[in-house]
């Protein structure tokens, strides 16, 4: 079972992130949204329409960028967009002007007439997003939009997503990059083993699950109790010899270590979603998803996770009023 008891509401006009490791069920969840995978039970409503019965109407207002780029390789970006636009029954001057707009919006002009197979990964990804914008979607679904791209391309893509969101498009994206989610998303849901284990605004999740700052250092398990003697932390996590301590004032804790004559290198940084994910699932993102109760901490401990909903899928995406869009 890829997805189990999913209950998800995405408000129109927001950017929603679905996070989780490979195999968490993110792609399956997206496939259910546009009616290609059917839930065994439950209903999925997009724009208030039941996907099971009105898939065509839903997909007319939806743009989907799949994980894998799908192009006709010998054809140019312009020709690919033309082919794709026809799936939405665009034609003539309307089709051509839309292609022009998207070539500009995603900055594809320099290679607009070069066969796609000669384009770089970043270019191809931008073209894939241009494709999914052909029909001016109310809801844009991005399945791992920036996986495998270099930092500059990621930044460029993020700015495009922000521009779309500002223009009123609802964005639903999956990622296993927590920094991406934190920068782009108004709300995120963390998925693991087909279930949503936490949902909320990124900052809110960090505040409620951990503390605002993380102190990282190398520390053998054997010396941990001696090191932390008399020190209160909100939460602590261990990955191999790396120990992460979550506190409200990281600099203060680092200073206490120094005052005790401890010379090891200490990193103080803001807590991020990656930490939340680690705390919730006990796994690193790139590793296998095998949730276990998190390590003990002086603050709140995370044990059994609550599955939202029963054995069925409930999702309501981008319901509510119409909005202006690109």
């Amino acid at each position, binding site marked *: 079972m890829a997805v189990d008891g999913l209950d998800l509401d995405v408000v129109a006009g927001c950017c929603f992130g679905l996070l989780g490791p490979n195999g968490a069920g993110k792609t399956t969840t997206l496939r259910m949204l546009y009616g*290609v995978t*059917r839930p065994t039970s439950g209903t999925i409503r997009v724009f208030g329409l039941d996907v099971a019965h009105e898939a065509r109407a839903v997909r007319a207002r939806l743009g989907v960028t799949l994980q894998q780029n799908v192009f006709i390789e*010998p054809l140019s970006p312009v020709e690919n967009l033309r*082919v794709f636009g026809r*799936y939405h029954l665009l034609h003539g001057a309307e089709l051509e002007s839309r292609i022009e707009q998207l070539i500009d919006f995603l900055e594809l002009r320099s290679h607009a007439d070069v066969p796609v197979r000669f384009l770089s990964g970043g270019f191809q990804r931008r073209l894939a997003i241009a494709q999914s914008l052909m029909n001016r979607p109310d809801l844009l679904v991005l399945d791992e939009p920036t996986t495998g791209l270099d930092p500059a391309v990621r930044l460029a893509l993020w700015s495009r997503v922000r521009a779309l969101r500002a223009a009123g498009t609802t964005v639903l994206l999956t990622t296993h990059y927590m920094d991406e989610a934190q920068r782009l998303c108004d709300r995120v849901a963390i998925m693991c083993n087909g279930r949503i284990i936490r949902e909320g605004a990124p900052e809110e999740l960090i505040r409620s699950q951990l503390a605002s700052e993380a102190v990282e250092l190398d520390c053998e398990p054997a010396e941990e109790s001696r090191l932390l003697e008399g020190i209160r932390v909100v939460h602590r996590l261990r990955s191999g010899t790396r120990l992460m301590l979550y506190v409200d004032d990281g600099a203060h804790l680092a200073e206490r270590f120094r005052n005790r004559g401890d010379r090891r290198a200490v990193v103080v940084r803001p807590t991020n979603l990656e930490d939340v994910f680690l705390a919730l699932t006990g796994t690193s993102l790139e590793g296998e998803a095998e949730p276990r109760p998190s390590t003990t901490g002086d603050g709140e401990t995370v044990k059994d996770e609550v599955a939202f909903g029963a054995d069925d899928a409930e999702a309501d995406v981008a319901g509510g009023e119409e909005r202006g869009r690109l």
Partner: protein
Amino acid sequence: MISVPHAVSVWRRNATMYRRTWMWNILPNFFEPVLYLASIGIGVGAYVANMGGMPYVEFLAPGLLCVAAMNGASFEVTYNMYVRLNFEKAYDVMLTTPVDAGDILVGEMMWAMTRACIYGGCFYIVLAIFGLAPLPASLLALPIIPLAGLLFAAIGTSVSLRIPTIDMFSFYFTLFITPLFLFSDVFFPLRERLSGNWLWVAEALPLLHPVRLARYAFRSEWSPLLLWDVAYTLGLSALLLAWTSRGIRRRLTS
């Protein structure tokens, strides 16, 4: 429900790609019949004076026309469709748009028939140039080209949706298409070589029916048997398409 405009958009996808390379795609379509006719006309035809009551090359012409249609459709729905389905993921991206699985099937059938018409059309032109397409009688054979295309598009698609690896198409061509080519009235009249129950068995061969239709058209002859040929071709196509439309939905959705 099938949406014809969406099916046409699928057809246009393939046509756009084909147009890019049409010169290289169309030329072989002319060479093939020329080579066949040269071999039979100059070679075999010199030894076989009469086949089924006519010069051998004339006997062969309508049969090879149907073979061209069969090949045109078959290559499209086997290797090409398999690549679109499994490697290029073309259908997965279509399903993110209002295009539905049924539209994809209809669009692909229309495109395979188009390829059959391009192949068959080129063949017909060569036959006409060599004086082997009697006018106006042979014009009646032209609708048989898309008909044969549809039949072999339906057969090939039902195979493509189910085989586990692309390598298995070699079995499809060696053990199905090639025997059809050899034993469907194209090279010799089955009626004169088979007897009794074997003739009934031969009626099951899909290629036999378009070939018989085309040969009767070329000779401007008529027989009630032709109704059976039309019924077989349309009936089997419809049956396979009904089956395939469930198959393609199962393959693309879950």
